[in-house]
């Protein structure tokens, strides 16, 4: 499969919808994180650093899925995997040690504040990268 075909397949069909949802999370997480870090960092440093980290992961995943080249798909795979681990670890941690998280992050309580989209999104991302990796029969 040529590079151009691969890129087109990555951002077409369900992929386009997936990238749109990623983009919404990238915009939401980055702007929220900018406000948190800029105006009240000392209130909940751990939560706000995690928010910023999540924002970077979403921006990377969105951009790399949209580009769809072989190299950017590898970065997207890494970003989406980190996202899955992040939402599981932070989700568990926020339930076990709620006092460490005085303010919520996107990944707190497995993304319950965002209708659990944050925990479903990386699974869909992994599935989509896998589906588009193979030439259709």
């Amino acid at each position: 499969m040529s590079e151009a075909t691969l890129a087109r397949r990555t951002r077409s069909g369900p992929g386009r919808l997936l990238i749109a949802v990623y983009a919404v999370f990238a915009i939401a997480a980055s702007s929220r994180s900018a406000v948190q870090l800029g105006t009240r960092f000392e209130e909940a440093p751990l939560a706000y650093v995690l928010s910023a980290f999540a924002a970077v992961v979403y921006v990377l995943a969105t951009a790399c899925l949209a580009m769809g080249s072989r190299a950017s798909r590898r970065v997207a795979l890494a970003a989406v995997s980190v996202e899955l681990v992040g939402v599981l670890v932070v989700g568990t941690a926020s339930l076990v040690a709620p006092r460490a998280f005085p303010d919520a992050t996107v990944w707190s309580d497995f993304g319950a504040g965002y209708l659990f989209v944050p925990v479903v999104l990386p699974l869909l991302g992994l599935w989509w990268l896998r589906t588009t990796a193979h030439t259709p029969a």
Partner: protein
Amino acid sequence: MIDGLATTLTFVALGAALWGVVLVVVGRPLLIDRWHGLGLLGVVALLELGLLAQAVVGVVELIGTDREVDTFSFLGYLVGPVLILPLAAFWSLAERTRWGPGVLVIGCLTVPVLIVRLRQVWEAHV
């Protein structure tokens, strides 16, 4: 905050989202030369105008108010939907399958969510 405008925008956004869902279900792409595509884009354009008006009124009210509002969050929730909707429209027009209107559904659904948050930020006396 003009509650009437915010409520109207919420309903228009949900209506446009529903229209988009119908296109996804019947498997039509977003086509500008068909009544169902042009109509949906028309509603989205009106929604965008309404969101711009809300942003202008919101900024004026923010300057005029003497209550303590979380300024940056408030501005973010005012400007966010104004930017997201046209991006969604462009991203959706580039797709020639049923997933095109699906993108517009996502864009439209963010509008009511951001309006709810906008109201919360306005009403919370931080």
